[in-house]
């Protein structure tokens, strides 16, 4: 409503976000959080046993981690911010207001982490002999810092899934100590270790020679590492799923696959168990008979670990729907608390960027497009990935849709599809949105985003009078006005939970 809306009408914003975020998670977990302690352990073991092969292997693995984490890893981390600000500016803007100090602390840790990895890598060959213990100390410090950066972010991820008691009293610590935080962290930590073990197994094979007795030892070492973390990972997974709240549990069947394949979720569950099983079996094999481990078995664990991590993130993103921030903000960036007002006055009456305020017969389609832009494009495209035309065709077929039917569906779909937020706004706006969708069926047209066509503001709105005063007094804005002194407490009044949408007669007390 209040931001120019970046929109990718072919692949959707979510794909852009997912590619960057998942790449970051894989690198962060497998090449930093999990890998650094493994490398440090290997370095220490080499020093203890006095065998330089361990030291050399540890250095080579670190070189890969260093190059990748300081380039792709660091940049995709920043990229999550960039893409979040494009995909859902209201959500990330709100999260920053709540978690500024958490992120600030995380940033300090991040600066330390990057300084330490440069020190750890670049001094490897000069800090030898008497300085070796100090160098191993660098590895330990780096391990702690890598884990800490993840530990802070998981608090925010947990918050987005379940805001806990925060909506009743929005304070920083209530946000941090949300119900999902600790269980997810307990799950992610060993998960990162397992992923790093699988990755290191592959590298250990590459960086050693055939017929060299050391290769078997290296394979055994990394397999044992993976295997050691598996029980903790399983326990963490069990705890995590137990705390995923009831409301989300209801969505899990959909989250695991997509809506169309809802019934397959059992099969997918078995697939996950099977992948985890294969991971364990390969690691067991690597520990007991490292010489006879086939090449394919080296690639499999890392692929499976990456696939499982990706899957886990996909599910995590999906189960929090229809919210982007649990119970506080819908995925469309609008707060449930504002729905009653928008139902009375209209979304377009309050939106900043719309060509239309009041709907007339002449501007219905423009109004409908503006509604679609505001209420739908954070998740949907017109005819691209997750496109609305396809969704409605699945329900109502390829014959011209009936306007009453589509309108009726839009009005109530959140009742039957619990992952969808209600459509915000007035009846007239719902009708305009319907008209736009019908027009899309007749005449499918791409909807370009603000990044290519810019933004529109209704013509009648002219610069306010105080504009001139401000330029007269050169310091009108210095020190800044107070930005909303009165915080809005969402859903603090129990019964009128923000979930209550205006088009939601099911929820009305009876």
């Amino acid at each position: 409503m209040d931001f120019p809306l970046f929109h990718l009408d072919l692949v959707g914003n979510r794909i852009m976000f997912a590619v960057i975020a998942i790449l970051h998670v894989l690198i962060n977990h497998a090449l930093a959080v999990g890998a650094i302690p493994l490398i440090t352990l290997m370095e220490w073991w080499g020093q203890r046993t006095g065998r330089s092969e361990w030291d050399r292997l540890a250095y080579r693995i670190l070189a890969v981690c260093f190059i990748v984490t300081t380039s792709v890893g660091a940049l995709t981390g920043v990229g999550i911010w960039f893409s979040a600000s494009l995909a859902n500016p209201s959500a990330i803007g709100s999260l920053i207001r709540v978690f500024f100090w958490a992120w600030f602390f995380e940033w300090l840790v991040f600066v330390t982490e990057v300084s330490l990895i440069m020190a750890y890598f670049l001094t490897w060959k000069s800090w030898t002999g008497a300085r070796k213990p100090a160098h191993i100390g660098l590895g330990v410090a780096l391990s702690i810092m890598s884990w800490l950066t993840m530990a802070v972010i998981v608090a925010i991820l947990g918050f987005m899934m379940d805001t806990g008691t925060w909506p009743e009293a929005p304070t920083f610590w209530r946000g941090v100590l949300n119900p999902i935080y600790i269980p997810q962290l307990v799950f992610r930590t060993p998960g990162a270790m397992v992923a790093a073990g699988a990755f290191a197994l592959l590298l250990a094979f590459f960086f050693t020679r055939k017929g060299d007795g050391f290769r078997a030892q290296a394979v055994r070492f990394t397999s044992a590492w993976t295997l050691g973390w598996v029980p903790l990972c399983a326990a963490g997974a069990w705890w995590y799923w137990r705390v995923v709240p009831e409301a989300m549990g209801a969505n899990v069947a959909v989250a695991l696959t997509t809506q169309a394949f809802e019934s397959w979720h059992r099969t997918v569950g078995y697939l996950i168990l099977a992948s985890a099983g294969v991971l364990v079996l390969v690691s067991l094999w690597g520990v007991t008979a490292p010489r006879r481990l086939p090449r394919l078995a080296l690639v499999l664990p890392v692929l499976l670990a990456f696939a499982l991590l990706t899957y886990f993130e996909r599910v995590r993103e999906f189960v929090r729907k229809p919210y982007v921030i649990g119970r506080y903000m819908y995925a469309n960036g609008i707060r449930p608390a504002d729905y009653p007002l928008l139902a009375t006055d209209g979304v377009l009456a309050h939106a900043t960027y719309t060509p239309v305020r009041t709907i007339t017969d002449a501007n219905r389609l423009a109004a409908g497009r503006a509604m679609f832009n505001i209420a739908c494009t954070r998740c949907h495209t017109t005819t691209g990935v997750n496109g609305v035309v396809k969704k409605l065709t699945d329900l109502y077929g390829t014959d011209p849709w009936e306007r009453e039917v589509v309108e009726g569906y839009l009005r109530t779909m959140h009742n039957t599809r619990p992952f969808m937020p209600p459509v915000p706004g007035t009846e007239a706006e719902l009708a305009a949105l319907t008209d736009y969708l019908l027009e899309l069926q007749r005449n499918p047209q791409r909807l370009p985003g603000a990044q290519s066509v810019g933004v529109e503001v209704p013509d009648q709105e002219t610069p306010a009078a105080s504009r001139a005063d401000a330029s007269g007094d050169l310091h009108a804005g210095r020190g800044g006005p107070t930005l909303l002194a009165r915080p809005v407490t969402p859903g603090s009044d129990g019964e009128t939970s923000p979930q209550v949408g205006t088009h939601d007669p099911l929820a009305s007390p009876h």
Partner: protein
Amino acid sequence: MELTGPIPIPHDIPLPLPVDQVVAQALIVLLFLAHILFVGFMVGGSVLTVVCEAIGLRRRPFDGLARTIAATVTVNKSLAVVLGVGPLLAINMLYTVYFYSANALTGYAWISIVPLVTLAFLLTYAHKYSWEKWAAAKKAHIALGTCGALLFLFIPLIFLGNINLMLFPERWTEVRGFFSTLLLANVLPRYLHFVVACMLVTPLFLVGWLTRSGSPLETLVPGFTRPQLRRGLYLVTFWGVCVQVGAGLLVLLTLPVHGLSHLMVAVILLGAACALVALVLLRREVWVTAPDVGRYFVPIVALLTVTALCMGYGRHLYREGAIGWHRQQMAAKTEEFAWASAAAQWRFATGAGAEDENLPPGERVFKAACASCHAVERVLVGPSLTEIAGLYKDNPGGIVTWAKNPGKKRPEMPKMPAFRLPDEKLLAAAEHMLALGSGQEAPPPAPSAPDADAAPATQPPPDDPAQPAEP
């Protein structure tokens, strides 16, 4: 500046700022300067690396110098990125609406920063770690480094477009993508200012780091003496500062006036004065102080630090001045919206907003949950009520059982979603459906589209949906 057309006044994020304004503003100015310093070392370092390597084709010692500079870029570029996250966080928090609006309006360019910087980093690594392997193909190696340096030179332009655009909401409706932001009055002059700054801070950094006493100069850059190196690097800084004075003036003159203030201009001029004093000292270092060149290093750095602080603070004053009026209007609008929203919530909570309150419960649930798929006489998505009434005559409980856990029975229809509603609501809806389907109750007016008659009313003999799915 002539203002025409409407100006967008958005609502702000309706949550209080987590930080005192003064603290936030100090954070932005200081953290940003730390970030931009290392960006300068990164951009300047990568450019100097390829320039020195190219000179090294003719004069061997320069190749060693180039390689040593490349090694500093490895560290400086990583610090540039991590130190950027702090000011990014601060600017996201304090200027949320302004910054995100600019980001979205330049969206393609903005998001391409991520792959472009990644690529630039990987190219610099490739350049640095292939120095010996590619010794025979020196020109190709230089070309590799040049690609990295050019990327480093281009990327800041995207940032400059953004941080300029965010200051001028009156321009937001005119912008069409990133390249149109380059036409904003101040973008290109500031870009020039930035590039020159990179080229003058990097040699100064190298004087301090590379030629520090105790640095193993003979092994690092054989063929250079310490005074020689210092004088050469100082010379680059000297000309950099000279150009920068002109570039700075250009930036000041092209700034849209409505953000200017006397204080801001005074702060900027103070910074410029410090730079001029530094220039005098630099001149002495290059042409007068030999052989103990380097004795003014500390005062030069101190003076230029004051210059940088003044410029950073001056920028900040300008920013606050440029958006001050807009911010006040936004705050007022945000507050107004918050009150109106609270009032509407209250009205809704007290029942004034619920239109369907008077409907009987069965009809209400039916309309909300069932009617988008089931019509009385025809097939919308699922079977018609008439057909359902035939299947479940006098058995509304069967409908409830099915609705709670539906199977997939008809290949031509999508699977029905499960309904998690209290049994009594489902039962009421089921009774209403049977009443409608058997004609005991008048059907609702909608849907009654013109082509309703054309919809197929005939269906293949239905299975009993209450039974478990067939094997």
